[in-house]
């Protein structure tokens, strides 16, 4: 059957388009077939439960069900916004994410390029494996290690490695985890160590697809390796960089709960408290579940994310790179 239909596709011109629709389907049936399974999964598992979004504007009553629950307008949103701690958490979330974007995101790209520049192939693959390791430690463990490292010296011990080094250099020990002004930096750096290596994979895969002939001809033209990096490698992974950037921007208003929750403490709430930890402390931490509030929060965060992505997308499409839409 496949053969027969494939044959039909092979000479579309001979048959002249008779009825537009049928011919069109005949021409592109294979592409539609490729899309179909994904479409079905999407329709069932993503759009199936989509009606639940209305809970953001409702008071959920299991007796009545989602559809018949009572509309309460923007009450769920009002509950969030009328609270200075919420505003602070909201601000912190955005600032921390922008830091992640500026430092973390660019570091990922840089690390990928550096890894690619390593000459010795064996060494390169060893290094790749090394940087990719910490991704597998959960934040519970990883943040425990961060604390061990940054511990300030106390009565019974000389503090963590970093403070020991500072002491050796003759400096004053620093209470890293108690200083609100340092906390965001700690979040960004610990995230870089934990997940940068893992994030480079997608760039390395993109670099692997570059035609080596390009480098060869560049070398013949007298370009050095740094030039090759800037003029050949980087432009070729730019589409991947852009799409990763957009994906990261889509989460601009969401935060990594596991990381913040395991690292923060009362001292650094002013700069470190993010939305997810705040909501957890005031509602879920008590053991209850507030389905409407979490739906409303997700909705508002995602709508804002969508707006940011929409703007970015318009901008990148001018760069001759396909954005997200």
């Amino acid at each position, binding site marked *: 059957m*496949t053969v027969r239909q494939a044959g039909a596709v092979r000479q579309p011109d001979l048959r002249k388009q008779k009825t537009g629709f049928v011919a069109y389907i005949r021409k592109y049936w294979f592409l539609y077939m490729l899309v179909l399974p994904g479409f079905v999964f*999407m329709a069932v598992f*993503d759009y199936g*439960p989509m009606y639940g979004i209305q809970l953001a504007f409702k008071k959920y009553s299991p007796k009545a069900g989602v559809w018949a629950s009572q509309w309460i307008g923007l009450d769920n949103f009002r509950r969030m916004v009328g609270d200075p701690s919420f505003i602070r958490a909201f601000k912190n979330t955005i600032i921390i994410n922008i830091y992640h974007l500026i430092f973390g995101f660019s570091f990922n790209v840089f690390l990928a390029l550096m890894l690619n520049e390593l000459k010795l192939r064996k060494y390169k693959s060893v290094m790749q494996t090394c940087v990719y390791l910490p991704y597998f430690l959960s934040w519970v463990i990883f943040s425990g290690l961060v604390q061990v490292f940054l511990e300030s010296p106390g009565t019974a011990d000389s503090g963590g*490695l970093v403070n020991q080094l500072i002491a050796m250099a003759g400096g004053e020990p620093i209470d890293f985890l108690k200083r609100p002004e340092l906390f965001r930096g700690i979040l960004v750096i610990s995230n870089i160590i934990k997940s940068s290596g893992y994030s480079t994979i997608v760039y390395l895969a993109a670099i692997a697809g570059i035609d080596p002939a390009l480098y060869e001809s560049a070398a013949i033209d007298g370009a050095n390796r740094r030039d090759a990096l800037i003029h050949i490698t980087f432009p070729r992974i730019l589409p991947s960089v852009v799409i990763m950037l957009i994906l990261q921007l889509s989460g601009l208003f969401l935060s990594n709960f596991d990381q913040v929750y395991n690292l923060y403490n009362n001292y650094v709430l002013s700069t470190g408290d993010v939305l997810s930890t705040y909501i957890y402390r005031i509602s879920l931490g008590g053991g209850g579940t507030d389905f409407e509030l979490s739906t409303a929060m997700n909705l508002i965060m995602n709508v804002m994310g969508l707006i940011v*992505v929409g703007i970015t997308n318009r901008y990148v499409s001018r760069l001759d790179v396909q954005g997200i839409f």
Partner: protein
Amino acid sequence: MTAGSKEKPSRVSMLQRFGFNFYDVFVFAFVTLFALLCVYPMWYVLVASVTPYSEFVKGGLMLWPTGGIDFQYYHAIFTTRSFINSMWISASKTVLSTVASVLVTAAMAYGVSKTHVKGMKIINALVVFNLFFSGGLIPQYMLYKDLGLIRSYWVMVLPGVLNITYFIIMRNYYSYSVPKSLEEAALLDGCTEVGTFFRIVTPVSRSMLAAIALFIAVLNWNDYYSYMMFIGNKTNLQPFAWILRRMLVDQTMMNQVRKGAMSLGSQPPPPMALRMSTIICAMVPIMCVYPFLQRYFTSGITLGAVKE
């Protein structure tokens, strides 16, 4: 495809031509330092997993196992039945969902990347919409209940088959990084659409496919949420990620393992070392996948080779 053999000599000549200079030293030093920073946490966990508790409480950097190396904790883990079983669950669900997910997601991404075909743009918008909006837990739970997925193995596999994030990455890769000329040439040569996809496009994009497969596999290997929320009490369906999670935060799981170790006649192992060894056990299998995929990242295939 003779990519590997063709490419090697040219690389060597490149190395010779560029020589070894300050730039290389910088790259070398930077990558090495960062790699050390990354390896240390793992090393810490590894050392702690073989260190007796009386040594562990003294604290320190765990640069080297003091007080002798003790594999009893691994022994304790491998004699706990639910651990072995959960390894199988994790492995099978990871393989199943990764294969399904990569096939479905990549195929759909390829189709949708052909934006000139009618309907593809709309489908693309429909998919991307999901990146931002979801119905939430309640309707999800009801849907799974209607589909008979609650308390079933398949709830850990099916819902995530279409992965939106990797759909977007793949779609962009197809539409940007796979040269249009290549496909057009293949079609002109009399290759069918089907043939072009399988014989031309897929080989060219295999480094990205490998990367996506790795990401999805890791995602599935680490997923415990679907078990936690939608299965919960089917002991035989626990994935290893869930066991690990419980080892880290749940006392009863710890008691099970300690009890198992005691029945072997040894002292009950200290919790910290058990946690550390569980982490290692959870990491090793998925990390073994990496070297197999890594070669796709380092040796891309040349476009010229495909044209032949």
